[in-house]
């Protein structure tokens, strides 16, 4: 499968995530759009890893080229899981204080 297709699919998913972050007001949905962007990047990393592996496997049969990319995806998932647990705790605390998850109410730093 040509690498172009994966690049454009990832760009489209990433831009959908960005539009979601810019247009929605619900903090939880903004957070979900961030996860969507992370997943777009993960998909592109895996595709590039397989591209790199195919280029190297022509000369060396049991090469491990490209496993770095997949391990980066693994670490991105680890960081995303930690981020979600802390972020949702922050959203719960915000809901407890202002009884809403609308990010437009969170402009108190202005005053």
């Amino acid at each position, binding site marked *: *499968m*040509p690498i172009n297709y994966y690049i454009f699919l990832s760009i489209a998913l990433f831009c959908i995530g960005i539009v979601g972050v810019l247009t929605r007001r619900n903090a939880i949905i903004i957070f979900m759009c961030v996860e969507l962007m992370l997943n777009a990047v993960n998909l592109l990393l*895996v595709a590039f890893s*397989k591209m790199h592996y195919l280029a190297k496997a022509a000369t060396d049969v049991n090469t*491990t080229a490209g496993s770095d990319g997949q391990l980066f995806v693994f670490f991105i998932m680890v960081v995303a899981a930690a981020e979600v647990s802390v972020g949702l705790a922050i959203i719960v605390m915000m809901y407890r204080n202002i009884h809403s998850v609308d990010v437009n109410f969170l402009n108190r730093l202005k005053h």
Partner: protein
Amino acid sequence: MNITHVLFWFLSVLALFSALMVITSRNPVHSVLWLIVTFFSISGHYILLNAQFLAIVNIIVYAGAIMVLFLFVIMLMNLNKSTEPKKNRWLQVAGGLAGGCLLLVLVAALRDTEIKGKIAQVNDGNIGLIKNLGKELFSTYVVPFEISSILFLSAMVGAVVIGKKE
């Protein structure tokens, strides 16, 4: 047009459609469910690329753990009705326009890259199997692996401290 191509296009269309439904549906619970569909189709892409370990981890961690956490928080706060007030129309148009411009710029910039003709290997290659990735993870990347356990511990402590009353 063999079965791999058909699967690729089906999974791509499914991923894009469900991602669009995530940002357009008014009910947060529907957004979460559509996001789960997106994650499953991305896992299908991983299986197509023969990255089996990441496909399983994606389903277990994202669709299994993180999305349940989201759903739990939404149900806890009783947000499962469309209470979101209408946003300023122009802000929505501007957001969509900004995202569309980014899409346009990225596609235009990457349309003629030098890696254009390269192929990403599908259906073959044992780089993504658990055996190979595990060897690499526990030899070259053992220090980041251990550090990520400390990250998890600190995230857990942070979540408990933030979520605690008083």
